[in-house]
């Protein structure tokens, strides 16, 4: 079996719900042929994809990962129980990570309000951010450990229940020119992408991903909301992503989820995830990733460690942020 080729191009997009730009992005890449779609993030509504099908010129084939997963769990109760247990462990890990994260973020906030000689303040602020970064990394490591233990114990790709579906998915993908990954519930989406090893099944197709889809194929999934109802929001890492496009943290829906005028919050996000670049991607935003480089940005905003944000220009090289 030949080694699968990486995606020929990856396009990250903002929300597609009201003013879709997906078709234009596909046209720009010259995609002429069937497009596989993944709408597993819509969960039970996975099949309600007629608008998407229309928008892409009625040439889509939905991989139905959500439905397939349900079938697998029904057919393979042993795996289902183990999978549930793994998810439960991940939930516990997330809970404990969140407890520690809230304290680290509080400490960072208190330190920022203190008056002290500038050089001391700078050092302590950097140390506070460093502690948050360490915690984020620790949590990602814990998630990776849980996943790899599950994989080692259950070898899911070798089980008949999953192998059959993976074979079918590979067959479908072979005849497509692109894979379009929709948004929705990012944890569900990531879970299904991983369950079927979708990243390993891509063989040169272009990938178009928006909202949660863009988050899921980046290096790490960052959950964020600056104004949730329960009080000031604390962004948190959920898990590693598929890592198809490296070096950025896509932040969809900034219009409703980010307080971009709050320099302290913007700076914290940018510093926390450096050297990855935090990219706010409002509706209509688009950026292309080819051979390890980003280009053709449209309406994408880059968050900087000084608390500002600025439109990404076509000439920008999107160099990594300096870590603090």
């Amino acid at each position, binding site marked *: 079996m030949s080694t699968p080729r990486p995606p020929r191009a990856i396009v990250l997009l903002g929300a597609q719900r009201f003013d879709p730009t997906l078709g234009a992005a596909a046209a720009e890449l010259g995609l002429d042929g069937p497009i596989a779609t993944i709408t597993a993030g819509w969960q039970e509504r996975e099949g309600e994809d007629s608008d998407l099908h229309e928008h892409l010129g009625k040439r889509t084939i939905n991989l139905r990962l959500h439905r397939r997963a349900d079938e697998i769990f029904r057919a393979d109760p042993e795996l289902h129980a183990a999978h549930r247990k793994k998810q439960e462990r991940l939930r516990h890990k997330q809970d404990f990570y969140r407890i520690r994260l809230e304290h680290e973020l509080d400490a960072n906030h208190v330190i920022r309000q203190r008056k002290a000689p500038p050089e001391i303040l700078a050092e302590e602020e950097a140390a506070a951010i460093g502690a948050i970064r360490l915690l984020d990394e620790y949590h990602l490591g814990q998630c990776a450990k849980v996943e790899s233990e599950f994989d080692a114990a259950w070898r899911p790709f070798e089980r008949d229940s999953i192998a059959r579906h993976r074979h079918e998915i590979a067959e479908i993908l072979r005849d497509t020119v692109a894979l379009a990954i929709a948004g929705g519930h990012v944890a569900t989406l990531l879970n299904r992408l991983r369950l079927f090893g979708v990243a390993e099944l891509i063989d040169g197709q272009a990938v178009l991903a928006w909202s949660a889809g863009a988050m899921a194929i980046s290096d790490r999934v960052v*959950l964020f909301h600056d104004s949730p109802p329960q009080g000031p929001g604390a962004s948190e890492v959920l898990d590693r992503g598929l890592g198809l496009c490296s070096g950025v943290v896509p932040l969809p829906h900034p219009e409703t989820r980010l307080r971009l005028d709050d320099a302290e919050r913007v700076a914290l996000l940018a510093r926390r995830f450096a050297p990855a670049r935090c990219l706010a991607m409002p509706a209509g935003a688009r950026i292309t990733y080819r051979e390890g480089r980003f280009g053709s940005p449209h309406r994408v905003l880059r968050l900087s460690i000084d608390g500002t944000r600025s439109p990404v220009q076509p000439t920008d090289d999107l160099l990594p942020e300096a870590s603090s």
Partner: protein
Amino acid sequence: MTQSQHLAIHELEASQPDRAKVDAWMAGRRFPIVEGGRVTFVFRGDAEGVTLRHWVYGLESNSALQRIQNTDLWYLVLEVPPGSRVEYKLEIHKHGHSQWIEDPLNPHRARDPFGANSVLQGVGYEVPEWTRPDPLARPGVLEPFAFHSKALGGVRHGHVYLPARFRRTRLYPLMIVHDGSDYLNYASMKTVLDNLIHRLEIPDMIVVFTDSPDRLREYANDERHAKFLTEELVPDLQKRLPLQDRPQSRCLMGASFGGVASLSTAWRYPGFYGRLLLQSGSFAFTDIGRRNRRGPLFDRVVEFVNAFRAEPTAISERVFLSCGVYESLIYENRSLVPLLDGTGMQVKLVEARDGHNWENWRDRLREGLSWLYPGPLMMIYE
């Protein structure tokens, strides 16, 4: 607005008004008149005296309105901080009798089990839009239930709320609400649940609204009540409904004595209920001596709270408290926070410029529920 600035009522009074002037002045106005931090209560009618009756602890609750000479217009100016919500009535004195009435000039009313009060909405206060029916929010269903309790020796009634997208194949968190019918009738709780679930601010959940025929006894740290909930009702629900069987997914909730019932039940079954939502809990205690200032109704509450304060332990995981600063219980609730916090439980107290009433408890539901049970909002990026 500063103290020295003239208010609308002062301008009227200075003009030595007659009936026609008063008519003209009143036309098109909203009452009470809110002018920055000062509020003018107004009554017009035949009376020998008019008194403002309110439920703001620490503020003279028997303030007389004064009459503008040669008119039947009575008024009282009070300083009311921004964001305040005050329930009140007017007491009309006439022919040696007095009668408490709702303010005829004020359209805002709050209902409770005893009737209704007029509501002063201070500057900046608005009824939260998430408490009003949203046509886009799919409604959940309420199903009545009756449960025969051996522990209590009788039948207990209530309602079970199932979210709009309820499926037997999914597992749900469970919340048990004391004084359930009151929460439904006076705190719009079904509407609030429908809306918050629709907005992804809380997850789909199953909520059991329970009632007690003798709440002052059963909610005051009654062992039988705790047993009924924990050893009878929850196991029965667990059999009949798809519930997540873990402490983090079980919440007890209540207001006033219902708050006591929630905390004391969790205390009797430590670790069983991972979430508590306590609104204006009647957590009376004594630091010195055994006599409590609130009377014999509170004796068993004091006994429990004193015992808990003597040896506080982490009986739950997350505890949300809310209390109005215009109720005397703010003292007890504030003093509970460091105590709970010191056990390692996660604690949040939210205070409001409001009193011991159902709409105060309604207005805090969003923050409380979403803090205890954050919904998929953080997870969904369409």
